[in-house]
């Protein structure tokens, strides 16, 4: 399931109802990403006061659904959930939640990591940081590309 929303989410509530009543599930992996107060630029000691996430309504949901379908193709998953926020967020705010459920833990861990790695390089979101040095758009990071790239093997033919 995919949700793109401006409002906050409660990881406890999401976890409690995630895969509820499905007794084939042996393990759930749940990842929550937060807004850090350090600027994205390596070596910078600037502090972030806030960040604004812009997205492409329609295409964002479509890309997230595609990424979710790819995870389900690769691993035996009983349930998946991606919740991604947009709008203005402050340090400490929750920004993204990824949850995976599988009969065995290995698939849940791997699929969860795959989902967060792939969404960072494929889902149309853009971040603008408000730092002590001014506001600026965050550039895509090579380390994120590399993290996504290692999952490339086994990608579905397009």
């Amino acid at each position, binding site marked *: 399931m995919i949700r793109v929303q401006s409002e906050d989410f409660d990881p406890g509530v999401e976890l409690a109802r995630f895969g509820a009543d499905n007794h084939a599930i042996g393990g759930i992996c749940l990842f929550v*990403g*937060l*807004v*850090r107060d350090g600027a994205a630029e390596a070596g910078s000691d600037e502090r972030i006061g806030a*960040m604004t*996430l*812009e*997205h*492409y309504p*329609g*295409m964002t949901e*479509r890309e997230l659904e595609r990424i979710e379908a790819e995870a389900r193709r690769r691993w035996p998953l009983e349930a998946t959930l991606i919740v*991604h926020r947009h709008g203005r967020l402050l340090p400490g705010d929750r*920004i*993204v939640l990824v949850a995976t459920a599988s009969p065995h833990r290995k698939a849940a861990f791997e699929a969860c990591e795959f989902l*967060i790695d792939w*969404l*960072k*390089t*494929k*889902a*149309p*979101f*853009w*971040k*603008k940081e408000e730092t002590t040095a001014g506001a600026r*758009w*965050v*550039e*895509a*990071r090579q380390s*994120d590309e590399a993290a996504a790239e290692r999952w490339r093997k086994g990608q579905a033919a397009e």
Partner: protein
Amino acid sequence: MKIVYFAWLKEKAGRGEVQVSPPADVSDVAALIAWLKLQDAGHASAFADMSAVRVAVNQEYVKLDHPVAAGDEIAFFPPVTGGRC
């Protein structure tokens, strides 16, 4: 056709969305960009460095040789930076 911009491309283009009717020989993304660059300084600046621009036609990622036609929605945006962690 409808053009939409996101992130700093929106700021440089000076708008988030615009309806355009380019001449008939504008048949692919590359030709559309070349035509848009002639329209005003904002567009010329937005498309100055194409290595920093990604394109979607009707909400699908495409390359510069992808065809465009009346009724299409063409989006221009920088490489994505979702997640955070």
